[in-house]
């Protein structure tokens, strides 16, 4: 593969993705591509399908039809191949989902040791560097329940980073946090974005979207209704649906 095409191949691409939950049509013909180094922010009312879409990217949600491609390669449906592909994509959840029985350090080293086959010493060295980078180095030997929500979420980010992912998905990473802890997590994400990480961020943090996003995707009723740069979208929304949504979150 030449340098040229590698640059052009989107890191993540969704083609005509459809999904139902029973009778509910949660994703309708989703087409989306995320370029290398791009920060894509997905917003929309609750129930719009934005989390579901985010979770189809590493197949935590299966799809009914369409295609999900990672660097141009279709996502395997199951087994070892799927696990290997997932290892290359980071995922940060609303509820942190740290492993409750493992220390903070072990949470970060588990993937590198088990999946990447690193030896313990070098995995721990990298893990400590990452924990320092997200500002929780002193917590390394505690267990998750001893940390605040903001700290746990930063550990979750470090755990994903330890796998050296090609891209990272954030599924409402600050929605479960107390207000005073939101910024400490967003700061880490801003820094990641500046460092060139390819990111898909589902969030309600409009300030973050404006500051960091290269592109904003607005979803409603399972469809991508509108997309554009943050300035275009926030200042000049093209659709009524987007205007309604922006009005509804404004002004308190």
């Amino acid at each position, binding site marked *: 593969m030449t340098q040229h095409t590698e640059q052009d191949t989107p890191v993540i691409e969704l083609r005509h993705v459809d999904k139902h939950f029973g009778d509910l049509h949660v994703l309708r013909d989703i087409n989306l591509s995320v370029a290398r180094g791009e920060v894509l922010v997905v917003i929309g009312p609750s129930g719009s399908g934005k989390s579901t879409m985010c979770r189809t990217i590493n197949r*935590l949600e299966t799809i009914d039809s369409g295609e999900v491609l990672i660097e141009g390669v279709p996502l395997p449906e199951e087994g070892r191949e799927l696990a290997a592909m*997932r*290892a290359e994509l980071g995922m940060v959840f609303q509820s942190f989902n740290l492993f*409750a*029985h493992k220390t903070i350090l072990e949470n970060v080293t588990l993937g590198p040791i*088990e999946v990447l086959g690193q030896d313990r010493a070098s995995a721990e060295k990298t893990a400590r560097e990452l924990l320092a980078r997200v500002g929780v180095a002193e917590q390394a030997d505690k267990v998750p*329940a001893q940390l605040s929500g903001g700290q746990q979420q930063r550990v979750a980010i470090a755990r994903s980073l330890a796998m050296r992912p090609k891209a990272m998905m954030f599924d409402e990473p600050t929605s479960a946090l107390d207000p005073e802890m939101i910024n400490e997590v967003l700061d880490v994400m801003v820094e990641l974005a500046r460092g060139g990480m390819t990111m898909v961020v589902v969030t309600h943090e409009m300030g973050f979207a404006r500051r960091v996003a290269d592109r904003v995707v607005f979803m409603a009723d399972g469809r991508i209704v509108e997309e554009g740069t943050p300035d275009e979208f926030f200042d000049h929304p093209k659709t009524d649906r987007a205007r309604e949504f922006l009005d509804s979150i404004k002004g308190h």
Partner: protein
Amino acid sequence: MGLVELLSTYGQDYATALFTTWWMTAVSFAVVMVLSVGITVLRVCPLRPLRAVGDLYVQVFRNIPGVALLIIVVYALPNLRVVLDYRTCVIVTTVLMGSAFGSENFMSGINTIGVGQIEAARSIGLRFSQIMSRIVIPQALRSAVLPMTNLLIAVMLTTSLGSQVPLSPQELTGIVSYINTRATGGILAFLIAALGYVGTAAVIGLVGNRIDRKVRILR
């Protein structure tokens, strides 16, 4: 027969019987734990037929009276050309029942883990076997200590099924029948045996509590 006479005549038999009960309990429980983990893994694995097998196992062996199961093991297995000695029959019966309950204990331990951690494990690329061995089983084991303590006591009491078949040496309940057919120990002969069960259960409970406090997962 008074207490002194009972103990002086049959003290040695009681001691041997207590040790036999302990031995059968330990062997049964060790197998119960291994089998419980196996059945539980079946019950949560991605393949539907295997899940069905695991669920069926639990439904069957949780709902058969111990004596009935023992009769099946003693009289039916030889028809399948499996001939076991009586002590093994009792242990097999205890294990079959115990592991059904043990699997239920693990299942409730697994249910406390939450789907989120499993999804996190999947998204860092762990495979099913790794998720089981690194995330699910360790947490299920640690949160199942207290119910497993109860199960250990139940397993011990279930080994008293041994009194229904000719064992040599006999276990704690069997020895009482033996004594009472030869002398008139009456209720006293039972009480001595009961003391053996109660004392053992108390120690098990104490140790179980300690282990639980040590390994309990903060949430």
